[in-house]
């Protein structure tokens, strides 16, 4: 069971990251973390995530699991776990004006969009190519759409977003095409207060 001192350290680190979460929330999430950690070695592997049944019926389940693991690694500790979850915290109004010189908190609009962007961009080349978009589309769509139809949807989507004509979507183009979407609301879970 989570020893108190480690949750306090994590709490402090998260506060430094700009992720202000209450102590009780951390304790709760820590107990969730340990319940997922079947190997009881303080880290989660991909299999631990895959053991959550609802993720198996989520079209983007595996991609999101991936998002928890930093580049090239196979284990994630509690710090990393919280780091990823931090993206989903609602943006508080009073925080918006807090400290312009501090580094941007993880749950800012840009960082949320970056998280979403990296779901598509697996090879981390800062561009969503047509293939990458197709992959994600295919995951989200039923089997009744043929490859050609899906391809044309992907093409049109890229057309809408692409501004510099390289037939792929860069992060800035991604931000621009979603500027009217209320990202703060759509990517926030209220319990992370």
């Amino acid at each position, binding site marked *: 069971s989570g020893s108190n001192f480690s949750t306090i350290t994590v709490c402090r680190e998260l506060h430094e990251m700009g992720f202000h979460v209450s102590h009780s929330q951390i304790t709760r999430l820590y107990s969730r973390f340990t319940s997922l950690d079947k190997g009881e070695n303080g880290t989660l592997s991909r299999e631990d995530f895959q053991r*959550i049944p609802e993720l198996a019926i989520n079209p983007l389940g595996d991609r999101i699991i991936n998002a928890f693991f930093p580049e090239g690694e196979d284990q994630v500790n509690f710090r990393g776990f919280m780091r990823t979850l931090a993206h989903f915290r609602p943006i508080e109004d009073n925080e918006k004006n807090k400290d312009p010189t501090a580094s941007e908190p993880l749950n800012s609009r840009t960082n949320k969009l970056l998280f979403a962007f990296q779901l598509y961009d697996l090879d981390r080349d800062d561009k969503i190519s047509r293939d990458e978009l197709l992959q994600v589309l295919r995951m989200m769509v039923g089997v009744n759409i043929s490859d050609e139809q899906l391809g044309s949807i992907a093409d049109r989507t890229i057309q809408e977003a692409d501004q510099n004509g390289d037939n792929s979507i860069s992060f800035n183009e991604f931000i621009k095409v979603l500027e009217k979407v209320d990202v703060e609301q759509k990517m926030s879970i209220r319990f992370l207060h």
Partner: protein
Amino acid sequence: MACRTCLWLLGTTFFTCTVRLVVEGTEVGATQGSHPEPGVVGSNHSQAGGGHGSSISGIQIVTFKWHHVEAPYLIALWILVAGVSKMVVELNHNLTSVIPESALLIIIGWILGGIIYGADKMQTFTLTPTVFFFYLLPQVILDAGYFMPNKLFFSNMGAILVYAVIGTCWNAATVGLGLWGCWLGGAMGDIDIGLLQFLLFGSLIAAVDPVAVIAVFEEVHVNEVLFIMVFGESLLNDGVTVVLFNVFDAFVSLGGAEIDAVEIIKGIISFFVVAFGGSLVGIIFALLISLLTRCTKNIQIIEPGFIFILGYLSYLTAEMLSLSAILSIVFCGICCQKYINANMDERSVTTVRYVMKVLANGSETIIFVFLGISAIDPAVWVWNTGFILLTLLFIFVFRFIGVFLLTWILNKYRLVPLEFIDQVVMSYGGLRGAVAYGLVAMLDENKFKEKNLMVSTTLIVVYFTVMLQGITMKPLVTWLKVKRAAVTELTLAEKIQNRTFDHMLVAIEDISGQIGHNYMRDKWHNFEERWLCWFLMKPSARKSRDYIFNIFHQLNLKDAMSYVKEVRATHKVRESHDNLILQDIVPSVCLDMHEQDLTMRESEDFNAHHLLQQHLYRGRKQVLKHRYSRSHLETNRDENEVQEIFQRTMRSRLESFKSAKMGVAPAKKIQTKHQKKDKPQKVRGEGTFSPFLHVRPHSHPLIGNVMSLSTSLLGFETTSTATIFPLSFNLLLNLFLQIDQSQ
């Protein structure tokens, strides 16, 4: 076109024939009634048409024995007439999309009432309270309870209760007091009435009616939260209505002088008793039903009967104990749905669902037709302009004020606030219906001198809300939505991304193990799993209760083989040959912002958007959107979606395991994993694995991979009985062995 005219003609001829028969029947009945013939009913007398006495001159080959069958015949005939009216109403879809069905049925009721009145010079058929409350209303409410989306209902329970209790009390008080004030001011002329009677009238006219609400909201599709608010309110406010009605009725009988603090306190206490008592009765009957269905494995043919009988009994029992009968039957339906659906055979479940809809639909039709017929009765018509107009004004205005006030308070505590347009729809959708009429018809004429005035007013209020508000609801909503939306068309990218966000949120919620406020929900869930399911569900039902297990169960040999083949072969997505379009009930008006974009001109663009709209997986947030509908049964298309996603996920995980088979020796890891677990059930399950582990320890990394795949597939942490299905799983395992050996 010809077909349609034929149907029209058929309908009208049938119609007139039945009506004529009814009229003749009543005429015969009336003339017969004037001849006092002792013991006519049920006896085998032969009756000549003119009542010629009892001497028979010879053997009658055929006789007309009307009295013999009068009562059941009339009942059956009226049900038939109601059914035919519904058919007539449904003939023209353009009409029904403008005017809601309930309004059209009332109009037909007027016509029928006119015919009968013309034939009989009095209204022989009216909606009597007994028939309404005992034979027509229970089915409708049971249907509402059984198909209630529980999760949605209970997560919004707080708000629903606020509207139902406080809102109804507010409505009753303001309408009653307002009318009293105006009466004192002389706006109504000289009528024999008092404060208490006004309050009583206010309490019975204040309640939102579930039958009317469903009927109108069928056409106007609103978002789920809004729907459950109005719907839940209409169901739960019965507790308040019953109490207020009984309390004020008693007060009127006592007379104003006897009312003191004690009586008022008794009234308040009676509210709690009635409400909670009614719900308790319903829950007890739900338990009974669940237990019964648990034991009916061998006599599945009777199962559906139990549901209906016990549901009806719960209604009558609560009525007998002077508790809230509607609350009782609602909670009976709500609490038993999950267990009986799990316990009963599939065919029984389908039967219950379908019969429930048939009965509810039939009842609703009859109710509305009779609401129309009951109006054509000059004996009850008393016109008092002031009273009627003021009532209409007050219920309308005070409803708006009440809803906005309560919502303003509620929004401070709600996670997702209710918006302006939602509030407008909620206020405007507060329809009054047959329950108010039933209550007012039950009033005692001796105590309430102005009963007829109240009856007429109630009828007018019902017609106003059901017809006028029903007809104008859709245009109002469209206008508001368009005004509010002013939306630019969403681009494809935005649509895709919105759906991505949905899936992301759901996944993060599942990973972090939290959905909204859930400490209570977790506790309830645990309690339910440990005790209730064990008690109320058949053992076999418990095992297959878990959604995922269900789907995994459906992995048959063919599926397993196809996975395996696809791992080896290149991926080929199944081509769609024609439009295997999952039928999408396109709502006519929809308050969901991103659903319909009808102004797309460019056809190619439209195609892409259309395709996306139809084929994007809906994700759990939207799957939970239960469109409660009186006439449509939900088909299980969500299961297809879920199965597809599950198969695809498993396939890709399989691939990654297979590709990782080279460098990993996971067998050792698995053993330690298993031993560390201390849950007894899991140990039981592992017994089936150990033979494999022993026989082939480390030489087959693939098996090791498969093992860990299996633990991740089957080591689901949800159900306590992690019983593994050896059959299908071993099958899979054998197939892998085969592949491995063949390579």
